[in-house]
């Protein structure tokens, strides 16, 4: 198995004169849970379509599970489970019959184990009780689960999940996250797209951020956290003195908050200084410290900075 499950170089897609995906260099390491993050319309789904051979690229190349896209995809796709742009079904067929139909389309599966595998996939997403129900009678959340079940019809090396928690209630969202984690623990590489930062932060080991068709950042979640830095905030009436002390200690981005009651204070990026040294210096300088806090900032600010306005960060 290659070390990189999915990679692309200069991958580009244009619709007419509009460039929807602009020379993307993607690298999804094998075994990673890769969060493909970006606002709606930033080109995530189009990228996934190109990687999976549904759409052709106008420029660039991609490799999925060691097979070139699109010529080698016939060998790669049986090992890829995918949910792209929402689930889709034959409304007049039952959930189980829908999965059986998908399974029949895959030449490499064994028909004699089909019923068993369909049952197992439905079980895994908690749809066993509704297996015989027509898909049109399914709720939005049930359809989403059935779509994920379709991706789990056989053991996969790679799962591509496009907005997998869309339409799910909080309970269902938690279940999907747990499912993704358990699949990743089994060694499945997961490429999950989302416009929800909280989701990515909770389940992903790697992150790629899309904005207006470009991949603006890519790396491990730790790298992102480190880049966003650790902040200290001091609650004190002696703001000017405190700011001077922090600056003297070498803290950067020192900011003095406004005069709004008891929460007023001073904030700064900690850098490499030890927090206890900061407190000691403040006290030694006669600053009346009423509160001191060390916080790793959420990734939110960093992502908003990368993707610009209009980014949906609601959890």
């Amino acid at each position, binding site marked *: 198995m290659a070390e990189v499950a999915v990679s692309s170089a200069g991958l580009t897609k244009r619709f007419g004169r509009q460039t929807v995906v602009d020379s993307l260099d993607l690298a999804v390491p094998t075994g990673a849970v890769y969060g493909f993050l970006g606002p709606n319309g930033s080109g995530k789904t189009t990228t996934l*379509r190109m990687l*999976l*051979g*549904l*759409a*052709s690229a106008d420029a660039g190349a991609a490799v999925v599970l060691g097979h070139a896209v699109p010529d080698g*995809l*016939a060998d790669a*796709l*049986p090992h*890829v489970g*995918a949910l*792209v*742009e*929402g*689930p*889709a*079904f*034959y*409304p*007049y*067929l039952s959930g189980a019959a829908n999965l*059986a*139909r*998908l*399974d*029949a*389309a*895959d*030449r490499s599966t*064994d*028909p*004699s*184990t089909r019923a068993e595998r369909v049952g197992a996939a439905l079980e895994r997403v908690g749809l066993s009780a509704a297996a015989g129900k027509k898909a049109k009678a399914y709720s939005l959340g049930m359809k989403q689960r059935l779509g994920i079940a*379709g991706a789990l019809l056989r053991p996969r090396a790679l799962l591509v999940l496009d907005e997998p928690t869309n339409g799910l209630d909080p309970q269902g969202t938690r279940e999907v996250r747990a499912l993704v984690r358990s699949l990743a623990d089994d060694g499945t590489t997961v490429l999950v797209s989302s416009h929800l930062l909280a989701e990515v932060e909770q389940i992903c080991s790697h992150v790629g951020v899309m904005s207006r068709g470009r991949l603006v950042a890519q790396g491990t979640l730790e790298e992102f956290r480190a880049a966003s830095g650790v902040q200290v905030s001091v609650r004190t009436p002696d703001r000017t003195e405190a700011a001077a002390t922090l600056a003297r200690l070498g803290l950067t981005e020192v900011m003095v908050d406004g005069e709004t009651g008891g929460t007023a204070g001073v904030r700064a990026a900690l850098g490499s200084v030890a927090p206890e040294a900061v407190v000691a210096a403040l006290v030694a300088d006669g600053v009346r410290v009423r509160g001191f806090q060390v916080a790793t900032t959420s990734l939110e600010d960093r992502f908003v900075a990368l993707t610009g306005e209009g980014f949906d960060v609601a959890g």
Partner: protein
Amino acid sequence: MSRAEVRVPGGRLLRSELALLFRRRRTLALLLALVAIPVLVAVAVELSSTPPGPGEGPPFLDQVTQSGAFVAATSLVVAVPFFIPVTVAVVAGDSFAGEANQGTLRYLLLAPAGRTRLLVVKGVAVAVFCFAAPAAMAVVGMAVGTALFGFGDAASLSGGVLDRWDVLARVALLAGYIGVAMLGLAAFGLFVSTLTDVPVGAMAATVVLAIAAQILGGLSQLDWLHPWLLTDTWLDFADLLRSPLVWDSFLANVWLQAGWVAVFGALAWARLTSKDVLS
């Protein structure tokens, strides 16, 4: 493979496709509407006090009371210009556009079904329907006709007498002829279906082609065009009812339809294998 199995390329997908097509309520409704035609023909003739005179009404109608087989033959002839083509247009027009419309096309391709394999499977399924439609009418026509008018010998168009089994064979041949005659239209429908995500649009375009071709076929000023129209052989089945049997028109039908299937099959393939599936 844990079990020995005949490996037809696309075999299991074809089975799935045929099951999907023929278990679908819409397909059954289409077939039901078609088999209502022989029932109506038989009941109408049975109830009318004066049977139609020679040459009155659709071909063979005056002979229906001679043999039940004429119920099947008359109904098929009545249904060829419009009713059967409409059902073929619905099935062929829905083939890809329907899947694209509900989004299942992308999941079939991701399975991966393979685009060429999917085209072959869909094409075969639509072709099966082309034969199933006249076959269903023939079976019901024979059954109703035999029940009301008996299952006897009948006069051929050349004046001789065909024995009852020969009559049965000719009805089957007629149904087969009509099945072949629909293949060109089916190929066109399949192609149009790869162009759009709106199944109704593909169906309508296919019906329009069937009607337009027949109108053009009726204009004597366009004689030069007639041999190329896919509807040109639709009504040339008289040879099948002569004794002895003349195969010329059957072969002409096969060649014409094969040409249309080749052209639109190739276009459908070119379109499907290069198309971005964005639905």
